[in-house]
């Protein structure tokens, strides 16, 4: 019993991290249809900013989180302007390769400055383990923070994209750039805004991951980035609740697979599920059917 409850908790905790990263991924993909491979690396930068703020300048959790979000948001805007904008309207593959280039640039640029070795976060959140009823299972209070923040950001994002003008502009832009301009939507501003939001989310995720796992390194963004992307696709990329759903789903599946003794192939299973989901529902579990009509 204890084991089952504990594993569920492990799954949800892991899933919440995927979900948090997936939000930003989905956001950017949803608007400019770019698999932003650099998302995970913006997260890494966010983690280092958080590290510097808490570890060196002695900031506490909340200000560090907010500053890191803003800084990453700005970084995202700059990345878009410098790297992606010149390729707008070009081929998808070129854009994808550019995203990979940005990813490498951030990874190794950071490595050049801080070295390849990992750094350790100070404990800025209480390192308390809460007992879950009487089962003997425990949950890390940091997990609760992450889950809470993920859900909060999800609701906020949903509100922004579905209810606000900016959100509608983003969606219109994603579907037809010229037509959106003709409606009075400023393409550059809207894309910048999207990147700001998406990258700020990565910044938040970076700080939280840094705090949760306590170690960070310049290559830390790659794997969770990929997993989060898989989550976003499973949930239906571009769909905000889909990303969160996908994140939790993937977290739980990985945990269950590991718990069942197949930890070695858990990533393979994750990808297998991804492929299966795509086969059954090519636009993800919560995705729209494509609206192409002949």
């Amino acid at each position: 019993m204890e084991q089952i409850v504990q594993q569920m908790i492990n799954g949800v905790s892991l899933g919440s991290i995927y979900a948090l990263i997936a939000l930003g991924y989905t956001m950017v993909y949803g608007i400019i249809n770019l698999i932003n491979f650099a998302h995970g690396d913006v997260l890494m930068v966010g983690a280092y900013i958080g590290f510097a703020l808490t570890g060196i300048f002695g900031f506490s959790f909340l200000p560090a989180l907010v500053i890191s979000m803003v800084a990453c948001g700005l970084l995202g805007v700059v990345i878009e302007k410098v790297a992606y904008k010149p390729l707008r309207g070009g081929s998808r593959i070129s854009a994808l390769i550019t995203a990979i280039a940005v990813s490498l640039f951030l990874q190794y640029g950071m490595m050049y400055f801080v070295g390849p070795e990992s750094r350790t976060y100070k404990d800025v959140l209480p390192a308390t383990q809460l007992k879950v009823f009487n089962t003997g299972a425990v949950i890390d209070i940091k997990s609760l923070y992450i889950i809470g923040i993920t859900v909060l950001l999800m609701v906020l994002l949903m509100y922004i994209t579905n209810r606000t003008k900016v959100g509608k502009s983003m969606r219109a832009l994603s579907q037809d750039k010229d037509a959106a301009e003709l409606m009075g939507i400023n393409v550059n501003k809207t894309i910048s805004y999207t990147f700001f939001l998406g990258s700020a989310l990565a910044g938040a995720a970076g700080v939280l991951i840094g705090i949760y796992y306590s170690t960070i390194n310049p290559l830390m963004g790659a794997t969770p980035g990929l997993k989060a992307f898989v989550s976003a696709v499973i949930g239906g990329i571009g769909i905000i609740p889909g990303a969160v759903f996908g994140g939790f789903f993937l977290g739980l599946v990985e945990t269950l697979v590991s718990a069942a003794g197949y930890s070695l192939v858990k990533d393979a299973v994750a990808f297998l599920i991804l492929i299966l989901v795509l086969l059954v529902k090519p636009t993800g579990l919560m995705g729209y059917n494509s609206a192409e009509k002949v």
Partner: protein
Amino acid sequence: MKEMLTKKNAMKTAGILAIYLAVLLLMNLGVIDSYIFLNMVTIGINIILAVSLNLITGFTGQFSLGHAAFMAIGAYASAILTAKLGLPFIVGIIGAALAAALAGVFIGTPTLRLKGDYLAIATLGFGEIIRIVGLNWEYGGGAMGLNDIPRYTNWTWLYALIVLTLVVISNFIRSYNGRAVISIKEDEIASASMGVNTSYYKVLVFSIGALFAGIAGALYANYFYFIKPDSFGFMKSVDILVIVVMGGLGSIRGSVISAIALSLVSLSLQSIPELRMVIYAVILFLMMVYKPQTLLSKFKSPLRKEA
């Protein structure tokens, strides 16, 4: 038959032979030493990989991020056949080609329905699955890999297989099959309405592409003597894709030139480790923005009429 015996074809054949003999001579004279040859092997393998991926991604528009997986399958197949079972290289090559082509059918069939980025992600997932299976495959050495694979790859094999790849793929493309494949990339629904069996072609192209990637894997394993699953990871697939994109989607000649160019770039960056990847990233980015492939494309004509 007379079409085959045109002057142009004769010239081509003579050119191909001349290159072969010239390199052979230079090797015997010691002008091409082991280091140069090693780089030639790398370039040759990259050419085969890039041209075969170009068939899938450049010509057919099937976005694949898992090409290295087919190479891995070929490499392991050949390694096992030649090293563990002690069979001759030709068996290794054929085994590699067949195993990889089979994998191509295996991944091509279910992912038929997927388009664009979704296909890219599915193939990425496929690549990872292959890698993870490799890591856990005791017989294949798991994470420790396989070593002491006999070195059979020599200039003759390398050159013959490069030529084979180029001839097969370019002849395929310059036939009605090739046109069908290109039309799928342009507009799948219209293509189907013209009677192109899109499913068949997609799977076919995946397996032809995989077949040659498998051959590349065999050349790799039997030259570099040691393989492990991580040698064929996501970044390897990306590297191949970069060659293809830089050379120009749908340009075989471009793939060849860019395989050579990128290998040289990589070599020249070896000695500046601290900034190697940063510079590489910047180069990638500049290439995507300034598109040197448009220069190449002036020379290309994938659909040149033959008859």
